Every structure is written in structure tokens, then in C-alpha cells.
């Protein structure tokens, strides 16, 4: 510290001092309160993005205020500097120092998780095998050849007025409109004009934007687009199309191949496969209320396979991935399991931080039992 220039030392002292904390904590509490109440109106996903996973947010659309990243980053920085530079390494302060270390680990875990964590879910029918995990929120426009993904465009880049090209394919999409949560109606019931230019589903159906569902994963995203520039036999495919999430694919025949345009949740492929052997829902006797769920699966990694069970409060961890029993679905003649899948490099830090914080606070209370030291 003494080697640093005086202004920098002053700044670091300010960062590590109580004055910053005095204003930082109420600001953080206020942000959490506002972000929590906002969840009722805009849903958890939007509220989290706006208030907690942001450096700055615009209150009322114009007033810039510090977001969760900024406040928590400052808090972590302040606490780390205080811990490293100002801690009194005495027996009496051992509990407090440990508690501070626990909090730093918790925040470090949070930072690593926010940078590296991938969350998603996989739905598998009994007897089926899958390695595909779909994201909860991220959508993409995909060009598919059978089951092979040829190209994908994140939905955030699908904006009205933009033109999308798919490298290597003579396909150019002019985005006419998009909807975060589409209202799908019969074209005859909508105000949309009927013209000879309409192709595929667009001939019978129209989509329009409606109020987003607070639960982002429940929104049906969609787009209206125009294809032109196709020539020869493909020329008749020039026209206006609609496409929406979980709806039928738009089929195009290009250079003798049938390709499909699909809008759906972003897919990730696991480096191993999961086969669902059985999914079991146990009800409380005499009711339809679930008492427990579990899925019996077989993991196949290369040439090796082994059985495993994933149950409520009993996840399966393998190769950095963790599988949780999330839900259960009963289709007409088969049962399906929904497994939440996460990969988080910072997963162990909260456990360590919690343990150290608990020990630290216990030690502090124990050491204070005699006298009234702070």
C-alpha cells in the first residue's frame, strides 16, 4: 500500500472503508425490492435481466441507475479490499474475518456462475435416448437438413427490416415483423391482407404481437419473413411466410434438397447420451398429489454405459453437468420426464462460502460471550 501514490491509496481506503458500504447496502436493498416487485408484472426473466444481471438500468426508461452487477461488484471489491488490507488478524476478530471470507467466496461463486453457467432442460420419452438440452430462454432460427443443423441465427438478431443470409445456401430472408409472444389466428379472422404472395402456413394463418407472458419460457416467439431471389424451379417458393415457435417447420426445396426453417429454443448437445428407462410419479395415497418423482436412466459415454437414478432433491452429477428431476409429463400412450440440466464451474463455491460464513459467525458469537467486544 505504501508504495502506491497517495490519491490511489486514498481511493483504495475509500473503497475498503465503511462509508461506501453505508450507501451501498441500502442501494442494494432498494434494487432487490424493486426487482422483486417487478417480477409480478414482467416476470422473473425480464426482471432479472433488467435489475440484477445488469450494470445500469434505465428507471422509467430514461433515468440511469446502478444495476445489480455494479452494486454487487462494488460490494465484493470493497469487502475484498477490506479483508486483504484492513482486517485485524487477532483471535478476537477471527470469526469476523472468516465470515467476511465466506461472503467473498459466495460472491466469487456468483460471478463465476454468471459468466459460465449454462441452464437448460431435456425432455425424454420412456425408452428414448437423447443428448439434446434446450435452453429455457434463448431462441434461434435454424436451417435444418433432416436432423442435421446447417445454420442457426440467435433470435435477438432476427429483427424487422433485417435481411438474413445463410452462408453456402441460396437463401435470403427479409424479416418483415417479429413477435416475442405471438397471437396465432386464422388469416380470415385477422386484419392481415390476403394475397397471392403468401406461402405455406401464411396462407391460412396470421401472427400478431401480443402482451408478453411474464414467464418468458411460456412465450411463443415468431416472425413473418419474405423470401425472394430464388430462381428456376425454386422460383415459385418466393413469397411471404410465417414461422412460430413449436409450430410446423417451413419446408423449402433448394438445389434438389428439402431443407427446413425452424424456430425453437436453442439446443446444446451433451458429450454423452441419456436414455430414459422409466419415470415414476408416486402419489400420496388416494390423491393425485405427487409425493415424489424419479427417473431411472442409463448414461452412455463412449463405449461405457451404466444405470443411474435422478430424483427430487437427488440430482445426478457427471462431467460437470448436473441433472435434476424437474417435471413429469403423461402423453397419450407414453410417459416423459423433464430433466433440468446445468453446467456451472462456480457451483462448489457457494457450498464452501456458506460453510465458512457459518463457522465465522458462530465463532464470532462464541468469542463475544465474555465482554462486549464488537
Amino acid at each position, binding site marked *: 500500500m505504501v508504495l502506491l501514490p497517495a490519491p490511489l491509496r486514498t481511493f483504495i481506503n475509500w473503497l475498503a472503508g*465503511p*462509508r461506501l*458500504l*453505508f450507501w451501498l*447496502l*441500502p442501494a*442494494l*436493498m432498494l434494487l*432487490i*425490492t424493486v*426487482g*422483486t*416487485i417487478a*417480477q*409480478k408484472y414482467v416476470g*422473473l426473466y425480464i*426482471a*432479472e435481466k433488467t435489475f*440484477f444481471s445488469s450494470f445500469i438500468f434505465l428507471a422509467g426508461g430514461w433515468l440511469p441507475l446502478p444495476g445489480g452487477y455494479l452494486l454487487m461488484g462494488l460490494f465484493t471489491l470493497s469487502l475484498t479490499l477490506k479483508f486483504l488490507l484492513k482486517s485485524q488478524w487477532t483471535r478476537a476478530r477471527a470469526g469476523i474475518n472468516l465470515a467476511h471470507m465466506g461472503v467473498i467466496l*459466495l460472491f466469487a*461463486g*456468483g460471478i463465476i*456462475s454468471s459468466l459460465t453457467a449454462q*441452464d437448460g432442460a431435456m425432455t425424454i420419452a420412456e425408452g428414448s435416448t437423447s443428448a439434446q438440452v434446450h435452453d429455457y430462454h434463448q431462441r434461434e432460427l435454424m436451417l435444418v437438413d433432416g436432423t442435421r443443423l446447417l445454420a442457426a441465427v440467435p433470435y435477438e438478431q432476427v429483427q424487422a427490416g433485417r435481411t438474413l443470409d445463410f452462408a453456402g445456401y441460396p437463401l435470403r430472408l427479409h424479416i418483415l415483423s417479429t413477435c416475442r409472444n405471438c397471437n396465432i389466428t386464422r388469416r380470415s379472422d385477422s386484419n392481415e391482407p390476403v394475397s397471392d404472395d403468401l406461402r405455406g402456413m401464411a396462407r391460412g394463418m396470421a401472427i400478431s404481437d401480443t402482451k408478453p407472458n*411474464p414467464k418468458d419460457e411460456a412465450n411463443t416467439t415468431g416472425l413473418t419473413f419474405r423470401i425472394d431471389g430464388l430462381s428456376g424451379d425454386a422460383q415459385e417458393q418466393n413469397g411471404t411466410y410465417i414461422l412460430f415457435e413449436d409450430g410446423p417447420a417451413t419446408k423449402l426445396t433448394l438445389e434438389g434438397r428439402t431443407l427446413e426453417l425452424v424456430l425453437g429454443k436453442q439446443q446444446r448437445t451433451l458429450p454423452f447420451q441419456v436414455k430414459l428407462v422409466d419415470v415414476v410419479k408416486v*402419489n*400420496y*395415497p*388416494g*390423491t393425485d*398429489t*405427487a*409425493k*415424489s*418423482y424419479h427417473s431411472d436412466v442409463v448414461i452412455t459415454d463412449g463405449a461405457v454405459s451404466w444405470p443411474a437414478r435422478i430424483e*427430487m*432433491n*437427488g*440430482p445426478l452429477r457427471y462431467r460437470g453437468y*448436473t441433472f*435434476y428431476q*424437474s417435471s413429469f409429463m403423461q402423453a397419450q400412450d407414453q410417459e416423459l420426464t423433464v430433466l*433440468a440440466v*446445468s453446467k*456451472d464451474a462456480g*457451483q462448489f463455491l*457457494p*457450498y464452501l*462460502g*456458506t460453510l465458512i*460464513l*457459518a463457522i465465522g*459467525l*458462530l465463532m*464470532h*458469537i462464541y468469542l*463475544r460471550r465474555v465482554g*462486549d*467486544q*464488537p
Partner: protein
Amino acid sequence: MNLVARALSRLGLTVMLALAALPALAQELDYAALGQLPILEDGRVKPLDTFARNLRVKLAGQAQVQGITATHWLAATLFDPADASQMPTFKVGNAHLRAALKLPERADKTYALSELAMGMAATADQAAEIIKKDPKTLSRDENDLIKLHEHVLAYNQLLQGLSLVLPLPAPAPSSLALSDPTYLQAQRFEPDLLAQVRAFLTPELINNPERLTADQQQQAAFLAALQQLRQGGEHNQMLRVIPLNWQQSADWLAPWQVVISGKSSPITQDLITKWQAAASAYRAKDAAAWRSALSALHTATLAAQSDATLPARLQLEVLFNQLHLFDVAALTFVLAALLCLPGLRQGLRQRLPARCSWLVMALGSIALTAALACRVLILQRPPVGTLYESMLFVGLIVAFTALMATRRTQLPALIAGGALLPTALLLLAPFVQQDGETLTMLSAVLNTNFWLTIHVLCITAGYGACLATAVLAYYMLATHGTRHDQSARLPLLHKLSLVALLLTAVGTLLGGVWADQSWGRFWGWDPKENGALIIVLWLIWIHHSRLAGQIKPLTYMAGMAALAIVVAQAWFGVNLLSTGLHSYGFIEGIAAALFGFTALNLLAIAILWVLARRRNAPQVHHA
């Protein structure tokens, strides 16, 4: 002397009258014995006593109405439906609804099924239309009408629960040679009767039933009664009193389900026969036969199931229902608060009642502990799994914290605050669980004793410690600068709040670990998580501000008193949002109460703070 002689004479007369009444009392049916029998309801096997009380509370608002106990009412409902339909059963609190149903006005607003029958029939179409509407758009009158129809439907199902072992409402044709047969006895004749009736009941006779002979009329009426009973029984699943253990199943079935589904066995047949014996004894008002039938039924039912702990748990639950331990605890706490009043100025050691108040408070805490222990043993899980249960547990933590703090400080105000707060929690708890003390089962994600123990108990104990801290802070704030200034207690306040910080911080983080185990993420900014985090941040803020000298002791006390507001918002306020994964805690209709609590506390803290500052008391300096 004359007075004593008169008194003895009166006493002698009373004893003689009591002795004379004994044979009559002996003839009274022991309805409580029915309450000992087990039934499966809402996923849990419980005594009929609990079932009857819960249903009574749901329909009539209280377990005992006009002197009729819940088990007496249940016995009449099951064994003598005609009599039961005259008993007060449904509370109709809505004046508009009472007028619409043409019900007479009476103090308790409780009516028999027979009184409601006409009104129910008249409003059936209206109710059917209302059900089609969006529930959020319904008016209070519409909601109440739908609710009453649902209650009547449920009660009708219960009325028919044992109709298969009761005498049929129509006399048996002489050709059957049956006297007062039940459905079970007569059902085997139904195919023959049907063939006979079909043979003589031509379309012409259907239109002119007066041309039927008396015997034919009796046959047709008897057949109709059989068919009507069976139709009523086809969906009758409410009275699940027959265990299916012989089928290696944890399920229990209603008698009608056993008969209609064909899941009969010698065991189930024996049980149904014993139910019939109980019904006969009830209808004959034969106390000895009733006792004997219920005893046999109790033994046979328990023998037919496989849970070795069930008999003890059933007995415990009946005892728990009878003791009303939560009421006992609340009353004891109020008494403790009253007793400590004389000591408010001089301290607990100065006056005898005040000295007793600690002991009385301890007794109340024991009663509350016993009540929670009963629930743990009955439900075979930790004491907190719902919002309702968290209120009971927090009450206990506050009471124990106050007891411990008072032993050290002898501050009567801690007894008063520490007794009244749990009383308020015990009184308010039923409002967040409007079906009463139903001892509910938990959703799948909560069904883990490990996490319910370490996370939920830790965080709720943290709420309790926070509230106890707030009580002490309030007292210190109120007395600051007066003759009874308690500023010297700041170290105690500090230690209490440190315990609160430890429990809430660790509890919150353990919740994160549980979330990581079951939902796949440690922290998800869920409202309940955020609420708990705000309590932790508040405590950290107040502590660090005091340590750094940024706030004075008076403001420190005010900040700790405000902990009550922060806890209330985190505990109940976030549930009003009805969003997030902690859906089991969602409640409605407490927004105004919570707002009032917050406003009142803010006002009280502000006033106390300003008054204390005006008193210009010397500040206490400490490290």
C-alpha cells in the same frame, strides 16, 4: 351452621340426582369412540375425529355447533342421514345469499341440509352458469354461492358414504323375504327384479302407474331404490376407511369403491360387515353394542393395514385434538403478560405476580413445544413445511428467546413482548390456513426431512430471533432517556441481533444449497430468496453502521426495531406477489393487514425516536 347444613343438603341432592342420571348417561352412545377409527384423507391416514372436526370447520365454521360435537354429527351423518339432514351443518354468513335461499335469520347463521334443499335446487342453474366464468371475475355473492353448492355436494357424498349398509328407503317385496334389507343384502336380487319389472312394466303402465298392483309397485320402488343407491355410490370416494394392504397397496378405499370396483376380499367384507354392525347399534341406540362394534372395527381395521406406528399416531392425534394445546399456550402467554404488568416499573424480582410471570411463560412455551412435538410425531416430518406452521414455530422461538433473555435481564417488558408476540402469531396463524388445523401433506419438492430440518428450521428460527430482537429494541427505544433507560442493554441487543444474523444468513444460504440440489441453481432471485436476503443485508447494514460510528445508539435501536417490518415483508409480503418457485407459500387478502402493520410500526418507531431525542438523554458509549 344452617348455612353449612343447607349446603350439605344441596350437595347430597346433587349427588343423588347425578347417581340417578348415571344409568341414563350409560345409555348415551360414546361418539368419541367413532373418532378413534382411521380414515385416509388428503394422502394421510388420520382419525375420524380429525376428519369430522376439519369437515365441520369447513362447513359450519366450528367443530361444535349448538352443543353437537363433530363426532356425534359424523355418526348421525353416516348412520342416520335422515336425522343428520335436520342438524345444523352449513354456515351461510352472506346475508344476500341467505335472502336468496329464503333462509330464516338466526344468530349462528347455521342451517340444516333440509333447510337448504329448496334453495339449492332453485339456484342450481345459476351456480352452473357461474362456474363457467373466470374465477377472478366472480363477485363475493357468486363465490359464496358456488362454495355453498360445493359444500352441499361434498356433504351429500358423505351422507351416502355408508348407504350400502343402511336399511333401504323402500320396503322389500314380500317375494324376497327380507326384513329391512340393506343394499349389500339386496343387490344380488337386482338382476331378477329387473327382469321381473321389465316384464310387467309396459310403456302403457309407465304412463299409468296407478294401474300397477301393490306388489308390482313395491317391486318397482324397491328396484328404483337399489339403482339410485348404486348410482349415488359409484363416485363415492370420500369415506376411505377400508385399507387395501392385502393388495400390497398404501391406498384405502371407501366402502362403495370396494363394492363397485370389485376389490372385495374376506378382509374388506369383514370390515364392511363390522361397519354395518356399528350402523345397526347406532340406529338402535344400543350403547353396549355400539361400543362393541366400534371396538371390533377399530381392531380389525388396524390389523388390516401394515403401518406399525399408526395406532399410536391415531391415539396421539385424537389427544392432540382434545387438548387444544395451541389455545392453552396462547392463554398462558396472555396470563404471563398480565402477571408481569406489576413488575414493569420495578423489575421482575420486586413483585410476586411478576416473579410468577416467567414461570407461567415457561409453561406456555412447554405447551407450545408439546403441540409442535405432537405435529412432528403425527406427520412424521419436521415441524415447518407451510406458512401456517412457520408462524407456530416462530412463536415458539420468540417465546424461548424472551425466556432466556429475561432470566438474564429480569426485564418484565421482555416477558410482556415475548408473550404477546407469540400469542398474536398463534391467533393469526389460522387466517393463513383457512381450513383449520388440517395437518397437510407437502408437495414433492418439500417432501424431504433433511432440508426441512436444516434450512427451514434455521431460517424460521432466524425470523423468530429477529422478532425477539425487535421487541427488545422497541423497549430500549421507548425507555431511552427515561428513569428506566435500558441503554446499558445494548450489548444484549447486539448479541441477539448477531444470533438473528447467524440464523437468517445461514438459513438463507442453506436454502440456496437446497435450491441447487433440487432446482439446479444456487440463487435465482426468487421473491422468497430476495426477502430473506434483504433481512440479512438489513442486519449487516445496521451492524456495520454502528461499528463504524455512522449511526448513534438511538438510531441503532430504531433500526433493530424496524427489523419487525423487514421480517414481515420478507415472510409474508413476498407471498402476495404470487410469483416464483416458492408457490406453496402464496396467500391473498393480507395486503391491507401487512400495510397496516408496516405503517403502524414505522409511525411507532418514528414517534419513539423523536421522543427519545427530545428527552436529550445522555448517550451511552461503548466499544
